[in-house]
């Protein structure tokens, strides 16, 4: 066992009763390097200052109490090793702050009811049973249950909410954790209202199409829930399975993306906008909706051209890539389309990345997740668990 070492913690303190602004408070603690930041804070609390406020109970990343930011990164204090935190610190001092996107109550304690739980309540977070309810258990696919277990693994810690980029811009955005909760029902074969749930979340202007794929929630999540992947899966079910043509142009936007890249090998920005609004074909731009959005986007487009961000030629004709490259891109499309079972983005039961290939050969494993690398979506960062070093 490693020896106890000194670490300095810089804690963001805020005393709502003092009338003073938030301030930094430093304490030096002594613990083995693989102990957690939470244990460090608890030592500071026990030895020096019992008034340091932080919610915690399990110390083992299961109760979801201790969401904070360590050196600016959202996560659990009990799931971040001191040595890793030291390594990621700016100046050799481990900085701990309350989570973002939620009001601070005191020190490291934020008001989760005001944001997180409100959003959870927004997604009708209970099972609406398929009737008739059987006498014994519902007989359902083994994989389906394992699949939703990934979202069930969410401990409602709020780390993903803390730094969600879209939520910063649009506080009404339903957000990563609540979306994962929604998937838990949409993916549950016992639920009777999957289409209704999807319609609701697709039509909501602050719903699933608001996410900008910034990956922050995947990085933040200590339990491998991968909220962004759950959002992608909700979109896929809404658009591809239920053909929900949402008023946010979300599904059309995605479909246009897919066709454009298939056709051009790279994104054709000029086509994307009109197609997203007018419909996913070359004729999309003649749809009245497309004309309207093009007109309203004109100032932004002009600016982009003036600043040299877009060249008029590529803007009009699209990017050109060599023929062979284009063929390779199209082969990826063919390969994906040829699978009888689609690739799901569930990594809950897949194990580690290194196992992906071996396990992926079994057909059942495809749905239970073993072959679900980020490859089909080009998503990095999908290690099943955020390691405590994050």
């Amino acid at each position, binding site marked *: 066992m490693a020896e106890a070492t000194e670490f300095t913690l810089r804690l963001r303190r805020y005393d709502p009763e003092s009338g003073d602004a938030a301030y930094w408070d430093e304490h030096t603690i002594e613990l083995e390097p693989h102990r957690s930041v939470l244990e460090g804070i608890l030592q500071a609390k026990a030895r020096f200052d*019992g008034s340091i406020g932080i919610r915690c109970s399990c110390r083992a990343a299961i109760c979801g109490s201790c969401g904070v930011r360590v050196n600016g990164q959202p996560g659990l204090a009990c799931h971040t090793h001191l040595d890793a935190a030291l390594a990621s610190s700016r100046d050799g001092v481990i900085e701990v702050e309350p989570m973002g996107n939620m009001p601070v109550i005191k020190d490291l304690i934020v008001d989760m009811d005001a944001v997180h739980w409100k959003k959870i309540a927004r997604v009708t977070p209970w099972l609406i049973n398929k009737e008739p309810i059987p006498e014994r258990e519902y007989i359902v696919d083994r994989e389906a249950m394992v699949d939703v277990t990934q979202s069930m693994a969410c401990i409602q810690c709020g780390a993903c909410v803390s730094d969600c980029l879209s939520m910063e811009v649009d506080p009404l955005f339903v957000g990563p954790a609540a979306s994962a909760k929604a998937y838990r029902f949409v993916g549950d074969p016992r639920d009777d209202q999957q289409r209704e749930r999807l319609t609701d979340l697709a039509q909501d202007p602050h719903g699933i199409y608001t996410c900008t794929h910034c990956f922050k929630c995947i990085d933040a999540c200590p339990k491998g829930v991968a909220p962004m992947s759950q959002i992608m899966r909700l979109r896929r079910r809404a658009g591809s399975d239920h053909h929900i043509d949402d008023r946010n142009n979300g599904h059309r936007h995605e479909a246009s993306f897919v066709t454009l890249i298939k056709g051009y090998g790279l994104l054709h920005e000029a086509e994307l906008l009109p197609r997203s609004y007018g419909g996913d074909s070359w004729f999309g731009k003649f749809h009245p909706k497309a004309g309207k959005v093009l007109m309203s986007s004109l100032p932004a487009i002009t600016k982009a051209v003036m600043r040299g961000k877009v060249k008029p030629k590529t803007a009009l004709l699209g990017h050109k890539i060599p023929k062979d490259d284009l063929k390779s891109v199209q082969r990826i499309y063919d390969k994906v389309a040829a699978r009888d079972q689609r690739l799901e983005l569930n990594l809950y039961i897949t194990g580690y990345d290194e196992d992906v290939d071996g396990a992926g050969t079994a057909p059942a494993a495809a749905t239970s997740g073993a072959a679900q690398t980020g490859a089909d979506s080009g998503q990095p960062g999908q290690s099943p668990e955020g390691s405590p070093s994050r």
Partner: protein
Amino acid sequence: MPAHDVLIIGAGLAGQRAALAAADAGATVAIMSKVHPVRSHSVAAAGGINAAINVADDWRSHAYDTVKGSDFLGDQDAIEVMCSEAPGEVMHLEHIGVTFHRNESGELDLRAFGGASAKRTAYVADITGQAILHVLYEQLMKYSDRVDRYEEWFTTSLVLDDSGACVGVVARDIRTGAMETFSAKNVILASGGAGQCFKPTTNGLICTGDGIAQAYAAGAPLMDMEMIQYHPTCLVENGFLITEGARGEGAHLLNADGERFMEKYAPNKMELASRDVVSRAEQTEINEGRGVGPGGVGIYLDVTVVPRKRTLEALREIVNIGKDFAGVDITREPIMIRPGQHYIMGGVKTDIDGKTPLDGLYAAGEVACVSVHGGNRLGANSLLDTLIFGRRAGEHAAARATDMRMPTATTSVQRDDEKMIASIIDRPREGRRISEIKDELGTVMNRHVAVFREEAGLQQAHEVVRRLKEESKTAYVDDRGTIFNQDVLGAVELGYMLECAEAIVVAAIERKESRGAQFRTDYPERNDDEWLKHIDINRNGDDVPQVSYSEVTFTQWQPEERKY
């Protein structure tokens, strides 16, 4: 003043189940918890929940295993209720949305657990407690207009009327520091265990025995308090639990000689003998110099014998715990474990409807002692206990409320509690720190009131606890605020822990035999002639608690020698 037919203290599995059942029965209900409900320690339960749902299984077999596991101290009427109602309860959980693991035909899958004669543990990977707790909370959100939730409210006292019946509680809104009196026709205590009396423990920091101490202070008897479960597989590093599910999936226990030593102690059930048996075997190996690791204080748990894919699918949480908290990849190498404090079989004495001897006061879950676990709880029987008796208490309390008038709880208790809290905050910085006292308590309990016990050590522990009780009266806190003053609540919790600890030690001194979790090296045999009875502990002002006895209920199974 808020007033409800049924007021539930605690929002773990027992409390939430009670709330839903009472609401279904038509009562007005409130549920109160010092942490957000999903932070309750039920969330940590990993392995699963027992029920004889397989058509080839029989609840009587489950009941017999439970009786035998309890070392014949469990009350058999209660055990029959629990085991016969178990399949229905698990189906109910399935219907409200728990994502139980399935077998290839889509039915509930079952895994093996310790002390069980059949595979009968339903599970959700190794997050069973979490999955059930979160699904119950989904239902509570659904019941928002029927169940009032007081989240992050800390109950400080029960309120009794002149006749001694419980008619409400006093609580503090942690977020504002405001104190309030709640009236209720019935109060159900579901405030969990007291593991923090020990250090280390698998229990969360919130498991401080509040409800046990509050009921005890109000005059309710405690029962089986000496029965403290040490779980066989806790990380040497920090006491975290490795679920019994690991051994259920086939993992081995090895000593320093690489020997599967359980052959010597339980040749038939091996690693899956009762927890008390396995913990003692491990401790014996360690004491006799066959432990592993620095100081020889550990035992190897070898999960590598379980197919890797299965481990990753069904034991995922402990793969992470091994990786994150011990730096070991359990799919590739053995991990060092040892017995650690885990569960308290004893608690507030209740009947099979959760009723305590105090009118209007119920208890369910780990805070209670029905007693279904007797001298030793079987793995995966506790979740079942919380749900069955939580539901029964909720239903019974709702029924009792129908022909009752709403009482008005006196506010004098609130004034006393307000003064008590103010006086803690005002204490000069002269005494000891709360954290020091807590540390010393945990350490002494873990040294003398653990797997092996004997008179002198127990007496010494008792002396220390008495001294700490005195010292706690002048222990000071740093936080003088009202908003989220966790510091002062920590001092209140310390008071509860000391009361629980004393009851535990006194009962352990009293029982002069070895049964279940109580192993006295000075009385190494089970002695049915003298000790086949429960020990009840009653509070006696500030003096040493009073001891009395009650009968064990037998229905179908007579005591016999216990072999695994």
